[in-house]
C-alpha cells in the first residue's frame, strides 16, 4: 500500500515539477553560478597550461594521470590543501574549526562557496515549497516565497546540516574508530566489509530520517500558515512519524531515479572519446540538459513530499482556507 502511495505521490510531484519548470531552472542557475566561480581559476590554468602545450592535444579525449599529478605538484597554490585538511576538520573528536584558517587555494574557495550554497539552498527551498502550493504561480512567486520563508528555512537547513554532521561523526566516524582493531581481527574481509556496510547503512538511515524531518517541517511550514510557528514546527516533525513509510518511499523513488540517471550518464558518457563522440557545444548542451532533468526530479521529490503529507486522508497537514463570506442577500440590504 505504502509503495503505491509513495509512487503516486512521487509521480504527482514529478508532474507538478514539469508543470512549473522555472523552479528547476532556478536551481540550475544557482548551481551553475556557484560551480562557475569554483571552476573559473581552474579553467584559466587549464587554458594556460594546455592551449599551447604539445601534450595538451592528447588530453582532448582522455584524462591524463600524469597531467593531474604534475598540476598538483607544480601548482600547489591553485588546488590548495582541502584534501589534506578535510580529514582533520570533521573528526571523531568533533569539528576542528581551527583548521579552517589553514585552508588555501580552491579548497578555501570551496568552503566559502559551500557556505553560500547553504544560504541559497535555504532560499530556494522556501521558494520551491511556497510556489508548489500556488495553483497559479510564476518565477515572481518563487522569489517572493523564497524571501518570505528565508529566516525559518535557513534555521531548518542549518539545524539539518548540524544533525547530519553529528550523525556522520557519531554513527560513522566514532564506530569506525572503535571498531578498527576489531575489524582487523575478523576472519575474513567479507565480514569486515559487512561491518562497514552496517555502519554505512545506519548512517544513511539517519541521514534519510534527518532529511525527511527537515523536508516535512518545510512542507508543513508552508501548508499550515494558520498555525503558530511552534505548532507548525512540531506538526512538521509529527508528519514524519505519522506516515514514515510513505515519505521514505518517496525518498527512495527519488534516490532510485537519480541513481538511474547517473548510471545512464556513466554508461553513455558523452564526454568520453573526445570529439569523435561529441563536439564541444553539443557536449555542454547534453551536460546541462542532464543537470536540468536531474533538478526536475529533485523538485518533483519536494512536490512528492508535500503531496504525501497533504493528500487525503490527512487533513491535519493541509490547510484549507475558509470559504469567503457570501455577500448578504440583496433583500436584506434593502431592509
Amino acid at each position, binding site marked *: 500500500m505504502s509503495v503505491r502511495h509513495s509512487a503516486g505521490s512521487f509521480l504527482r510531484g514529478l508532474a507538478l515539477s514539469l508543470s512549473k519548470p522555472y523552479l528547476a531552472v532556478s536551481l540550475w542557475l544557482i*548551481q*551553475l553560478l*556557484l*560551480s562557475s566561480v*569554483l*571552476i573559473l581559476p581552474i*579553467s584559466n590554468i*587549464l*587554458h594556460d*597550461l*594546455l*592551449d*599551447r*602545450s*604539445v*601534450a*595538451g*592535444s592528447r*588530453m*582532448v579525449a*582522455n*584524462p591524463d*594521470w*600524469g*597531467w593531474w*599529478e*604534475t598540476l598538483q*605538484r607544480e601548482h600547489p597554490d591553485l588546488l590548495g590543501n582541502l584534501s589534506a585538511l578535510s580529514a582533520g576538520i570533521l573528526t571523531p573528536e568533533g569539528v576542528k574549526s581551527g583548521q579552517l584558517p589553514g585552508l588555501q587555494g580552491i579548497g578555501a574557495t570551496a568552503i566559502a562557496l559551500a557556505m553560500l*550554497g547553504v544560504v541559497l*539552498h535555504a532560499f530556494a527551498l522556501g521558494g520551491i515549497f511556497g510556489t508548489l502550493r500556488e495553483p497559479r504561480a510564476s518565477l515572481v512567486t518563487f522569489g517572493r516565497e523564497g524571501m518570505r520563508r528565508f529566516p525559518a528555512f535557513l534555521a531548518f*537547513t542549518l539545524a*539539518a*546540516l548540524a544533525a*547530519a554532521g553529528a550523525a556522520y561523526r557519531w554513527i560513522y566516524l566514532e564506530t569506525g574508530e572503535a571498531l578498527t582493531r576489531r*575489524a*582487523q*581481527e*575478523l576472519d*575474513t*574481509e*567479507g565480514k*569486515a*566489509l559487512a561491518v*562497514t*556496510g552496517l555502519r554505512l547503512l545506519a548512517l544513511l538511515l539517519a541521514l534519510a530520517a*534527518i*532529511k525527511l524531518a*527537515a523536508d516535512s517541517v518545510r512542507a508543513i511550514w508552508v501548508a499550515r500558515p494558520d498555525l503558530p510557528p511552534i505548532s507548525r514546527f512540531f506538526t512538521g516533525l509529527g508528519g514524519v512519524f505519522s506516515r514514515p513509510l510513505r515519505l521514505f518511499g518517496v525518498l527512495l523513488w527519488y534516490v532510485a531515479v537519480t541513481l538511474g540517471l547517473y548510471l545512464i550518464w556513466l554508461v553513455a558518457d558523452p*564526454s*568520453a572519446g*573526445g*570529439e569523435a563522440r561529441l563536439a*564541444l557545444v553539443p*557536449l555542454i548542451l547534453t*551536460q*546541462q540538459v542532464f*543537470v536540468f532533468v*536531474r*533538478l526536475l526530479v*529533485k523538485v518533483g521529490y519536494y512536490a512528492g513530499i508535500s503531496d504525501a503529507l497533504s493528500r487525503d486522508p490527512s487533513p491535519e497537514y493541509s490547510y484549507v482556507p475558509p470559504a469567503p463570506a457570501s455577500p448578504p442577500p440583496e433583500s436584506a440590504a434593502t431592509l
Partner: protein
Amino acid sequence: MRWAKARAIVPAVAALTWSAVSRGESAPSADLTPPIASYEISARLDTEKKTVEGTELLTWTNRTSHPTSTLRFHLYLNAFRNTRSTFWRESKGKARGKTMPDSWGSVEILRMTLEDNTDLLPAVSSIAPDDGNPDDRTVAEVRLPRPVEPGQTVRVALDFVSRLPRVSRRTGYKGDFYLVAQWFPKVGVLQESGWNCHQFHATSEFFSDFGNYDVSLDVPVRYRGKVGATGRQVEERVSPAGDRITYRFRQASVHDFTWTADPAFLVVGDHFHEAGLHDVDITLLLEPEHRRQADRYLKAVRAAISGYGRVLGPYPYDTLTVVDPPWGASGAGGMEYPTLITAGTSLSAPASVHEPEGVTVHEFGHQFFYGLLASNEFEEPYTDEGFNTYMTDRVLSAVYGADHPVLNLFGLRFPLGIDQRYPVDSNRRFFASATRDVHATWSWGYRDVETYGADAYSHTALALATLERLLTINAMDRALRLYADRWRFRHPSLKDFIAAVNDTTGRDWTWFFQRTFGSSGQVDYAVDQAESVPAKAPRGLFEKDGKLVAGPPEALATPKGYDTVVTVRRIGETALPVEIVLRFEGGRTFRTTWDGEARWTRFRVSQGPRLIEAVVDPDEKILLDANRFNNGLRVKPDLRAASRWTARSVFWAQNLIDFLTVAW
C-alpha cells in the same frame, strides 16, 4: 645485553647432534654456489604461546682472506621487542601507514656452543653498528675463543626461542595464520672490510650469505598440508600421539628461510614450463575468500618467471611458493624470501587493476635481485627494489598494459577510467620528493619513508628506463644479463652494474649514474619560447653603390616566409643530453641533440617555413623529466583540451554542489 642463561633444550624439539652433521644429512644436493652459511634447524610452533622453539646448527665458512675472531648474528625479531628498538623508533610505531599493535616479538638465544662444546653464550653481546642505539637488540656479536682462519669452517649449535608478534610488518601471526620470517639467529656477512651485519631498520630489508638449509617444522596436526616454506618439502611425519605433524624442507644455495602456515589455506598447485627456462613447481597458498583470484595469481607468477627469466637468466630453483595473506595480515604481504613470496589482494580487486598481479610479479622479481644476486639492501636499496621495480614495470606493461587507479569507497575498490602507464605514471611518486635526498643513499638514511620509497624504488626505475631508451632495449637487456650472470650469488653493487653497461656498450656511462644516482637534482627541460612571425623587411640605412641610403636593397625588401625563434630551458639541476625537434609547415623538421649543460639554448630560423611546434625530448626518452607538459610548445594555440575539461569540471561541480545539498 643480558642473555638468558643456557638451559636445557626444549624437550619437544628434536635435538641436532654433531653426528648428524658428520653423516652429511643436512647437505642437500645440487648446490648452485659453494655454501658459506648453512643451517640445520628443528623448530616447534606453539600456537598457544605464539612462540617457535628451535635448535640450530650453523656451519659457517670464512671465505675472506682474513681471520676473524668474532661472529655476528642477526636477531631481527628483537626489532619488535619494545618501543625503544631502532625499528620502532624509525617507524614511529607505524607500518605501511597503520599503527602497529602492542604485540611484541623477540628472539632469545638459550644456548650457543662450538663443536668442542665450548660455551659461547657468555661471550655474546649486543651491538648497534648503525646507530649506536643501546636498546636495540637486533645484532649480536660473539667473541670466539680462537680466530676462524681463511677457508676454515666453524660449527655453532644454538637453542633459541622466538616469540612472534601479531603481524604488522613482515613477520608474525594473525589468528591461526603464521608468517614466520627473520625468526632464527642468522649469521651476518663477513666481507674483506669486516662484518656487514646491519640492525633491523624500518625502511630496509635484508642481506645475508648463501648456504644450504635443512629445516624441520613441528606444528599442530590441524596444519596438515597447509604449511609452506622455502625450498622443497621432503618429509611429512605425524607424531605418535597424532596431535603434531613435522614437515621437513630442504633448499640449497639460498640465504634465508621463511615459512608459513594457516589451516584455512587453499593449496593450488601449478607447474611452469617454458623452453629455455627452468621448470618450476608453483604452490599457491590461497585464502578461501580469494579463491576466484587463483587464476590471476597463477597467470602473474607464470608471466613473471618467463619475463624475468628471459632477460636475467632462468630462475634456477625447483619450487616457488606464493602466499596470499588473510584479511588483517596485510603487513605480511608484499614480501620476498628465497623461493617463497607473499603477495596480497582484496575481495573487490577489479579486473582492470593490477592487484594482485603487480605485487606478485614484483615479489617474484626479488628472487633475482634480492635472491640470486643478493645485493646489499641496507647500503644500496635501489639495486634491489629499484632494479626490480624497473623489471616489474616491463613485465606488467608487456602482459597487462596500463594499470588503472582505484577509488576506495568504504573498503570497496572501484577502477577509474584513467590509464596509469608503466613506467612513468606508476612511478610518479618520485617527482613529489625528487630533491629531498641524494638518490643513492643507505636505506635508513633517507629523510623519511616516502623519500625512501620514491628514491629506492621509483627513481631507480625511471633512471633505468631512461637508460634503456638511451641505450636501446637490446643493449639494456644484454647489460642486465651480463650483470646477472657475472654476479649471481656474489653480492654486486651499483658499480658492478655500471661496469656491465660499459662492457656491453663499449662506452663509459659512469656520468649517467653519477648524475642520476649521485645527486639530489631533478631533471626538467622545457620549451620556453616558440614563435614564428612573418618575416619583415629590415629598416634603416643600407649600402647601395657605395653610399648609405634609406631602405633595404631590393633583395631584402620583400622577405618571404617566417622568422622563427625557439628557446629551450633546463629548469632542473641535473643535465642530461636531450633531443630537440622543430616541426614546420610543409612537413619539414629540424632535429638536433643538445648536451643540456647550459641553462638554455636558442634556435633562430630566418625566412623559413612557419613553425608548428617545438618539442624537447620528442621520443620521451628522458623519463626522469619531472614535468613533461612543458616539453613542447605549439605556435598556434589549441583550445580544445582545456575547453572540454572546463566543461567537464563545471558539470561535475554542479553535481557535487547538488549532492552536498541533498542531505539537508
